[in-house]
Structures are given as C-alpha cells and as structure tokens.
C-alpha cells in the first residue's frame, strides 16, 4: 500500500511541476519546477530499486546541470518571458493538439505494456539493484561505450571553451 501512495504522491508532484514549467513566465521559476520534477523522479527511481541511478539523478541532474541552468539565467538576468504570437495556427491549434499528443502517448505507453505479463508487477525485483552489479555491467559489456562518452565529454568541454572565448 505504501509504495502506491509514494508513487502517486511523486507522480502528482512531477506532473504538477511539469505543468508549472510550461505556465511559469519567469525562467527561474521554470528551472525550480524542473528541479522539483527531478527530485520526484529520483524518489521514483528509489521505489524502482535503482539506488545508484537515483543518487546520480540528484547529484548530476539536480546538482550540476540545473545549477548550470540557474547560473546562466542569473548571469543573463533573464526576465519575464516575452510572448510573441507570430503564428495564428499555433495559437489556436496548439493547445488541443498538445493535449492530444499527451493523451495519445500515455495511451500508447499503457497499451504497449498492458498486454505483456511483465507489466503487472509479477516479475518485479524485490530487492534493490546493487551498484556492484551495475558497475560490472558498465565496465565489462559497455566498456567501449563508457570510454566513448569520455571522448564526448572532452569534445563538449572544448566546444564550450571555443564558444565562450571572446571574439577578436
């Protein structure tokens, strides 16, 4: 019973925060609501037994990436978002189509999972996934991919440096 309550509390928090992200006029409010979503998702990861991913979610996402976002918002002094309506079609058809997309994706996700036996929690792991198993998977089967991401990070650092350099 308790997992269900926790799930629905976190799901409600995540969806409400995502809606707040859309409705907020100030970018900093959007950033804070996105942090809310990430914390709620971290609790859901704990509920799913993925402790390591939950910790990474808090440290890297809510900690590093969102701090970067907040830092840029503060640095640029980004004020209230300007609402420009260049497209009349988007103005009137956008909201219904957005809701349609939302319903359709949720329905499709449910339909894709409901038919299989795994969906009903029958095969759910009772214990948490140990970080040891995860790391052995990461450093054995996915070793090449892991090294490739280090190259990706290096390129990203170089790109950010080149972009941030003053034009002369």
């Amino acid at each position: 019973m308790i997992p269900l309550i926790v799930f629905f509390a976190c799901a409600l928090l995540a969806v409400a925060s995502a809606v707040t992200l859309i409705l907020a006029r100030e970018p900093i409010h959007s950033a804070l609501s996105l942090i809310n979503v990430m914390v709620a998702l971290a609790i859901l990861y704990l509920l799913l037994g993925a402790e390591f991913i939950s910790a990474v979610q808090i440290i890297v996402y809510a900690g590093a990436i969102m701090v970067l976002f907040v830092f840029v918002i503060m640095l640029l002094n980004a004020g209230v978002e300007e609402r420009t309506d260049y497209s009349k079609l988007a103005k009137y058809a956008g909201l219904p189509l957005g809701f349609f997309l939302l319903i359709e994706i949720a329905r499709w996700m449910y339909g894709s999972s409901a038919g299989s036996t795994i969906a009903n929690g029958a095969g759910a792991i009772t214990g948490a996934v140990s970080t040891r198993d995860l790391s052995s998977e990461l450093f054995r089967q996915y070793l090449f991919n892991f090294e490739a991401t280090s190259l990706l990070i290096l390129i990203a650092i170089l790109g950010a440096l080149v972009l941030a350099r003053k034009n002369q």
Partner: protein
Amino acid sequence: MSVPISYYLVLSGILFGLGVVAFVFKRNVITVFMSIELMLNAVNLAFVAFARAHQQLDGLVFVFFVIVVAAAEAAVGLAIVMMMAQNGQSLNVERAHSLGEGGPTYLPGGSAAESREALKS
C-alpha cells in the same frame, strides 16, 4: 503491494508529452533547453521501469549514458546561449534568427513571413 510497471510508463509518457508541449510553447531559449531535459528525464524513467520489468541492468546503464549526453548537451547549449546574449541577440527563439536564411532578426510585430519579406526589400 508493488506498483505496476505500466503506471511508471504512463507517467513517463505524460512527462514526455508535457516536455514536447513545453518545447513548442516556450519562447525563451533557456526554457526550451529545460524542456529538452524534461523529455530526457521522462525517457530515463521509462528505461528504469523497463530495466526493472525485464530484470536486466542494461536499462540502468543506458540511463547513465543519457545523463552523460544531457550534461554535454547542456554545457554546449548554454555556451551558445551565452554567446547569443553577448552578441546582443534576443533570447526569444522567434526573434533570434542569425543561423537562418532570413537575416539577423525578425522585425517586431507582424507575421514571420511578412518580416522576411520586409527584410528582403
């Protein structure tokens, strides 16, 4: 009793849809980046749920990679945003247009097509 996996998938779908809606609706380029992060988070939730359902660790490893890619993307993207701001461009995605064909910026007011015509003449 444990929570059915399909609940997580529906939540993931809803969050992804909200991310798409935010991506299309928001005008500030920083908020557009944030909606991309929201979509990535929704996909991560689906990955973790499937990893649990199939009792395999590959989904969790993929979440790890998605987070790495998101970090790299945020670093480069925000550097581009900083450069846009330094060059005196608007952060509104409908005005910032220096990468497009139609010239540096849209003129305020009027439709996009009209502004493009006005810039040509």
